[in-house]
Each structure stands twice: as C-alpha cells, then as structure tokens.
C-alpha cells in the first residue's frame, strides 16, 4: 500500500534574522546576515566575538512571568515557533485531534544556559543551592513538553538529540509517524540557545568558530558561527489538508538517515551521500528533479569540501544544475535548531520560487565547485529540494521536499 503523502501547512520560526516566518523570509531573500558581535554574554575572555543572536525577541512579549521562570531560552524558542506554526496552519485543535497529534522537538543541548548559571552558583559563587527549576528547565525534552502543555496536545511527544542533525531527524520521525497512521498531525522541528559563557568557551576550545563571519564554501572561510533560535513545522496528511482547504507550502516527500561509523567530528563523504540518496528514493524523487539544496554548509574546513563531494557523488553532472546555498551564512549555526530553520527556508523557496543565497561569499574554495548562489537570492522555480544536516558524531539526516502546485 502506498504511504500517506505528507504536506507542510504551517511554519513558525525565530532566529537572528527575525521573529516570525515573514520577517525571517524577508531577510533570507535579501541576503542579510544576522551575524554581529554577541551581546548577551561577556565576550572579553573569548577568542571569537560574533554570533547570530535573535534581535528583538522579547520573551515578555510572548510569555507570562511565570512561563519565563519555567522556560529556558531554548524552550521559549520551541514554544514560540510551535504557536506560530499552528496559528499559521489555521487548524482548530479538537480534543480528538489533540490525542492524534505528535510533537517531535529536536535539541542538541537542552537548557544549557540554565545549567551554566546554576552550576556557576555552586562551583564558583560559594552558594550551596541550585535553583529548584534547574532540572525542569534544563532537560532536553522541556521544549517538547512545554509545547504539549501549552497546546493541550496529548499524542506522542519526544525530543531527538543528534547534535546538528536533531531537527532533521525530528522531521523524518514525524514523517514516519504520519505515514504509519500513528498520528494525524505533527508539530516538528527543533530549537537551540547556545549563548552561555561555558558553552562558548567549549566551542572556542574546538577551534572551529570563525573570528569574523561565516563564509560557506569560500576559500577564505575561517569556520562556523553560532546562532540561536528554532523553528517548527505543522505536518499533516495531504488528504486532510485538502479536506480543510488548507494553505499548502510544500510536500515533505521523504527523509534519509545514515551514520558514518567513522569519526566523532570529522565528516565523511559516503555517509552524507547515502543519506541524500535515501532521501531521494524515500520521497520518490529522481535526482534530476532536484533544483535546490539547502546545504549543511557550516564553513568549517572539513564540512564544505566533503559536502560538495557528496553532492557530486549523488548527482553527477546534474550537480552543476543545482543551486546549493548555505543559509547558515545568515542565521548562523543554530545546532539542534538549524535543520528546522533551514527547512522553513527550503519550503518557502519552493513555494515562492526564490532561492536564498549564501551570504558573505567572496571567492569559492577550489575544492568547492558547485553553484552556491553567492550573495544574492535568485528567482527560480524548482520542483524539488533537499535540506542537509550532518552532525558531529557522523549522524546524517536529509529531508526532501516537493513543490506543491495545488
């Protein structure tokens, strides 16, 4: 029996580029980068200075003081995005539908900011107590749980944590639950709030963060730049979306997941290439139908040539006809939230026929020889697109989308 087709009917997103899909999409289309000096952390003892912090995301505009007490920043992003996506979908949640709705919310780090502050108290400030909300704020599933509580969703809800692939793994799991008929509606994506002193120090020690900005696929790229934020997508079977006359952004056609079994931080070519192939096959998409790839594109020395080779390995000559951009050049690398933010960019690219660029682009690395849509968005209708995520730990998850022409 053919599986149920699944479509995207709601989007919610907050990141450095703005609060809300409309604002974020406008920034992406204009190729504006949100990378600037980090303000929420004292950076005087950190070697890099720049990140992509949300600008103008005021928690008190979205949450009650009591909610703010309970929600770490990563959960605030998750809940904000879920609310926006649900509102955007126009779905009225009935009690029956709430039981048939699933939540899959990815996060790499959970409530890192809360943990950092709490442990500072006992390790360094001589205090003998940690705030009693430290555990409920810190746990990685806090985002999924707070979404469930706020929306009254009572179906399966969980968090996937696969570093930089967390969001894409979440989207693929939600797709599977919908196809299998386990649920009839999903809110899926991910979020991250990585701007805390201890964590930034840990990234500094990895020596992979650029001192300037994020220049994916460029010869003079100097590493990744961290970003914060998250996104959620409302997913539902095509027939129910049609039945209620929903606005359909695109079809979530398939997903491909592989592991490198290679190295805890160095990427491989074969693992990502296999994930891309599986995402195509699973979505019933022929390689030459793909017109756009939202790349993992971290701008680290290792990722960009490996990802380029993986794309070439799968697509052969057709690789030269695919627009490949890394929107991390604009919203930074939001780790467990990255794939969801990039899924929003990919879905809107399919819907509006505008391909977001790779910003901050100078000169291509000779090892990176694809069309990276340098600096300026391109008006181009494409029929199908991919969004890549390749995590530390060699865990790869790629999602494939098809344009929906109702």
């Amino acid at each position, binding site marked *: 029996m053919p599986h149920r087709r699944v479509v995207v009917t709601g989007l919610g997103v907050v990141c450095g580029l703005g609060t809300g899909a409309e604002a974020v999409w406008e920034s992406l289309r204009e190729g504006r980068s949100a990378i600037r000096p980090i303000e929420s952390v004292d950076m005087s003892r950190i070697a890099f200075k720049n990140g992509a912090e949300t600008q103008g995301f005021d928690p008190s505009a979205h949450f009650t003081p009591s909610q703010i007490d309970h929600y770490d920043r990563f959960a605030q992003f998750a809940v904000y995005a879920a609310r926006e996506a649900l509102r955007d979908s126009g779905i009225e949640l009935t009690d029956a539908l709430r039981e048939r709705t699933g939540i899959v919310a990815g996060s790499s780090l959970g409530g890192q900011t809360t943990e950092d502050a709490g442990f500072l108290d006992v390790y360094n400030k001589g205090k003998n107590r940690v705030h009693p909300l430290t555990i409920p704020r810190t746990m990685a599933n806090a985002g999924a749980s707070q979404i469930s509580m706020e929306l009254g969703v009572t179906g399966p809800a969980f968090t996937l944590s696969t570093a930089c692939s967390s969001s894409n793994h979440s989207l693929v799991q939600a797709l599977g639950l919908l196809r299998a008929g386990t649920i009839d509606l999903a809110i899926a994506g991910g979020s991250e709030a990585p701007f805390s002193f201890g964590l930034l120090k840990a990234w500094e*020690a990895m*020596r992979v963060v650029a001192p300037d900005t994020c220049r994916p696929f460029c010869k003079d790229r*100097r590493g990744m730049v961290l970003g914060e934020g998250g996104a959620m997508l409302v997913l539902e079977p095509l027939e129910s979306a049609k039945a209620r006359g929903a606005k359909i952004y695109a079809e979530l056609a398939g997903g491909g997941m592989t592991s490198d079994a290679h190295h*805890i931080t*160095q990427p491989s070519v074969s693992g990502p290439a296999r994930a891309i192939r599986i995402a195509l096959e699973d979505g019933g998409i022929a390689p030459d139908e793909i017109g756009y790839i939202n790349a993992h594109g971290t701008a680290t020395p290792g990722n960009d040539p490996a990802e380029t080779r993986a794309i070439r390995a799968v697509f052969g000559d057709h690789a030269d006809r695919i627009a490949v951009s890394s929107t991390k050049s604009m919203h930074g690398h939001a780790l467990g939230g990255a794939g969801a933010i990039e899924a929003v960019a990919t879905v809107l690219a399919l819907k509006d026929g505008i391909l977001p660029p790779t910003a901050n682009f100078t000169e291509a690395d000779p090892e990176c020889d694809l069309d990276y849509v340098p600096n300026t968005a391109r008006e181009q209708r494409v029929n199908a697109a991919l969004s890549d995520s390749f995590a530390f730990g060699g865990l790869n998850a790629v999602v494939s989308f098809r344009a929906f022409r109702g």
Partner: protein
Amino acid sequence: MPDEIEEKVIATLASVKHIPKEKITLESSLADLGFDSLDTISMLFELESAFQISIPDDKARSIRYVHEIVAGIRTLIAEGSLPAAAAS
C-alpha cells in the same frame, strides 16, 4: 641534548596520544604519530597549560611537525604571549 622546551613538548604529545616519548622526535609529523583533529586540539590545550601561553587558531592550523611546535612555542614565549585567561 634536547632542551627543556623540546622535552616538555614531547612529553605533552606523548601524554595526549598515550604513546611512549621515545617514539617522538623533532622530525616526527603529527600525522605520522597518528594525531587526528581531536588529538590536535587536545594537544594545543595541554601545551597552552604546560607553557602558560595562548596559541592562536591561525598559528595552530599550519602546524605539521614537532619541530614546528617547538619553534612556535619559542616564538610565543619570546613575544610574551599572554596565557589564555583560564589556562591556570
């Protein structure tokens, strides 16, 4: 006779990679010694602690041989490199 800096560098590398000091010479390359990217950043971290210096990313990226590490550390010490804030 190896001097104190050379000895300390070799001891640090041996400790990070869990190999005998005798396997390491000034002419050894990090690749030959089996250092991957994570071994390398761990080595830089330990060298910063051992010598109370701060090794910038740009300098670190070009290192291939043990003698380059020794030379780089001599330069940083001569320049009076400030230790990373938390190196102590």
